[in-house]
């Protein structure tokens, strides 16, 4: 594996770009995590046909190459069957917007959209995320071109340390996708699976309602 050499690339300054990291892992957008050693088995994991019949259940071992549709792009990574979607995003694809905070489904900081529904990515295995449409906070907007929800979060100071922010942005986005005119209570409920330790909730409520208004063109 010639990419192994790249793993040890030294960068000379303090700034590390995503490209540099991915290059280290072995390529451009069709990313391959090449942390496996040559002696380990590698299985190709296929999206399970739905509904999966007993005979269609595939036993996975060693390392598996997963193909994921993330933010409209096909990406691949070499992970273990037990690797969560969150760890795959963060450690293998350098999509670090989703945060690891509890790693067991009780904080919401790792929330991403899976087929447009908010999902705790720490509670889903990467192999199970294949064949589904995954959207992370990075896929919603960029600092240069923010989504209305992101813009409203900034404008209303709905973030302090910002560590919970991606999770809230994704949850609010999911809400506004299905409810264009939410009440304060709707916003609270939509975000009840997210926590913030800095205490930004009142400004998050303001931001979500303002974003809804803006999206309605009101």
């Amino acid at each position, binding site marked *: 594996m010639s990419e192994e050499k790249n793993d040890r690339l030294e960068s000379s300054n303090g700034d590390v770009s995503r490209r540099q990291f991915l290059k280290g892992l072995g390529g451009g957008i069709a990313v391959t995590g090449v942390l496996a050693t040559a002696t380990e088995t590698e299985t190709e994991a296929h999206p399970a046909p739905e509904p999966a019949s007993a005979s269609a259940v595939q036993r996975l071992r060693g390392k598996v190459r997963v193909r994921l549709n993330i933010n409209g792009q096909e990406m691949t990574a070499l992970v273990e069957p037990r690797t969560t979607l969150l760890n795959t995003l963060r450690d293998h694809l350098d999509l670090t917007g989703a945060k690891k905070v509890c790693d067991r489904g009780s904080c919401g900081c790792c929330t991403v959209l899976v087929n447009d529904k908010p999902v705790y990515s720490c509670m889903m295995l990467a192999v199970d995320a294949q064949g589904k449409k995954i959207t992370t906070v990075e896929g919603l907007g960029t600092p240069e071109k923010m989504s209305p929800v992101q813009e409203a979060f900034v404008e209303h100071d709905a973030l302090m340390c910002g560590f919970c922010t991606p999770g809230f942005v994704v949850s609010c986005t999911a809400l506004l996708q299905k409810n264009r005119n939410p009440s304060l209570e709707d916003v609270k409920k939509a975000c009840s699976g997210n926590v913030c330790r800095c205490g930004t*909730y009142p400004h998050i409520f303001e931001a979500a309602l303002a974003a809804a208004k803006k999206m309605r063109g009101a």
Partner: protein
Amino acid sequence: MPGWKKPSENSVLGKPTPRLDGPDKATGRAKYAYDINLPGLLHGMILRSPHAHAEIESIDASAAEKMPGVKAVIITAKAGDRMRFQGQEIGAVAAETIERAEDAIRAIKVRYKVLPHVVHESVAMKPGAPVVRNNDQTNLSEPNRTERGNVTAGFAAAKTISEGSYGCEVRTHLPLETHGVTCRWDGPDKLTCWASTQGVFSVRDELANALGIQPASNVTVITEVMGGGFGSKFGAGYEGVICARLAKAANAPVKLMLTRYEEQLAVGNERSGHMKIRIGADAEGKITAMEATIHGSGGIAGAGVPFPYIYPVENVKVEQRSVYMHTGPSRAWRAPGHTVASFLMECALEDLAIKAGIDPLELRLKNDPTPMRQKQWREGARLIGWERRNPRPGQGPLAGNGRYRRGLGCGAAIWGGGGGPGSQCRVTINRDGTVLVEIGVQDIGTGTRTYCGMIAAEELGIPLKSVRASIGKTYLGYGVPSGGSVTTASTAPAVKRAAEAAKKSLLEQVAPQMGVSPDDLECAGGKVFSRTDPAKSVSFKEACARLGMEGAVGNGTWARELQQSGVAGAQFAEVSVDIETGHVKVLKIVALQDGGVILNPLTFKSQINGGVIMGIGMALFEDRHMCQITGRMVNPNMEFYQIPGTMEMPEFVSVPFENPDATGVTGIGEPPVIPTAAAIRNAVLNATGAYVNTAPITPARVLQALADARRRG
């Protein structure tokens, strides 16, 4: 040297301003220590004692070392070492993936001789309890005494004497980004460390010292953004030092961030406090005397709170002791010790007022000498509608007599928030009209980066978007650690002085070309112009283009006259209590907070909200549960260690309280967290007549207190 301008003269400062790093945070682009990915990055993990008290008999890491993907194993404890709390560190590994690191940790075999432990204060205080600290005879520290005046005479002068017991349990900081670092060696004695910290320079010095790196500047610490600290993240810690050592041993960069489980056990908590008190007041409601004994625990570390708190008492006798237990050490907190002291004091005052038949707000007004807070008490009472309050606990139109009872309560805040020397800021005006502010200080989430930019923009009369603020790096000028709410009052003056110096250099360079004296020039509205001859005017950008190659550079250090210390604060709570289930719902919080010259009212308000919400957590939910049978923490996670969520949010009336006499900036990260819990407890009492004297005010405690109240009749 010039002071801060009047609010009416400002065009950037004092205006609600969104954060400069908001877009990065809202889009996931901001890179926290947890997010740093480097080519060839390994993942570190720490092995910890599962026992509260044990002696290590043997450690065998040979199996872990041989596992595929494991690149370094370092064991720091040895046979014979004592483990004194669940979560104490034994060693660490680095592996190619986090999953493999976890496997390796499990494969290290440690044999323990398990020893008897104490993890509850009441058990630790019993005679004959296992002693936590080697050379002590008991787990109780020597008393710390505060005595003044004549307590006997004070009580003799009292018309009403109230007695009670009050307490607060241990809480954990629970920053959402756990403690940890990403380390990369750039040479045999050059280290770069991305740290989740509230003190980049303290982390640098600790790493340099622990790793024997000289000079300390060979260690670079970077904290562009960090996910919360609340007093627990000043040092590199075991995790920082071992991560650097793992990186060296593996010859590859390593990221080591704690799991939530480790975070809950080992890297800080807020001390508990339990008090027995007698307190007396004269016929007017003036406190005449108090006598109190307090004990609290910071685990293997000490405890203690400032007491008496806020309200001056002439005749005082207070005795405090720390109780040592086999639990992780306490650390600083958002207002360390003060939230506990506030709860103990305000509960005692409330009960004294009720016993004396005086309006509790009246009693506070009588005993509070602070003019600012006198104003805040009155304004807060107006905003919450204090006249609606039940005249007697549990009895009144607000309480009603249904299942849900309503009531009102209040509490006071206090803080210093002044700054100190040391900060070194540089402001560079570039020839293209952009401006760079550089200072090493980190932003703990309060908005440091943003006001650094705002100050320069204001000084130079340009829009904020022309300014970039570079912070959170030890290769920039010194910045203070973010503790004690000192950051703003230490940093902002240096930024202002640096901006002034840069402006002076700009004006001196362009004045000859404009045919005026530099003293006659001013920067405002994106222009550089003559005060006496407004026709002589160029755009700021044009002026910059006339600068020499090096632009215009100014340095600034702290200026005492630009900051001030001492804030007040008052809060009022309205609650609804379900007397069938004991469930408390906070309906509304009115929080008034002054803070010197207010740089950014938007982030100021965020800090008030944030303090209040943490206070709601203390009031209703937060409690580190220890099991005395196993010695382990029952809730080292986020499903059972609960903090307030969206559904628990009341209506907020957060008021940045103008101080018209203010001449300096002051930090306010801490005061808004102080009085919330007491205000809520007092509101529960007002609603139901139930004296819940221990925080958190759980449904079980409410039901018990209701039963007690019924029994008393």
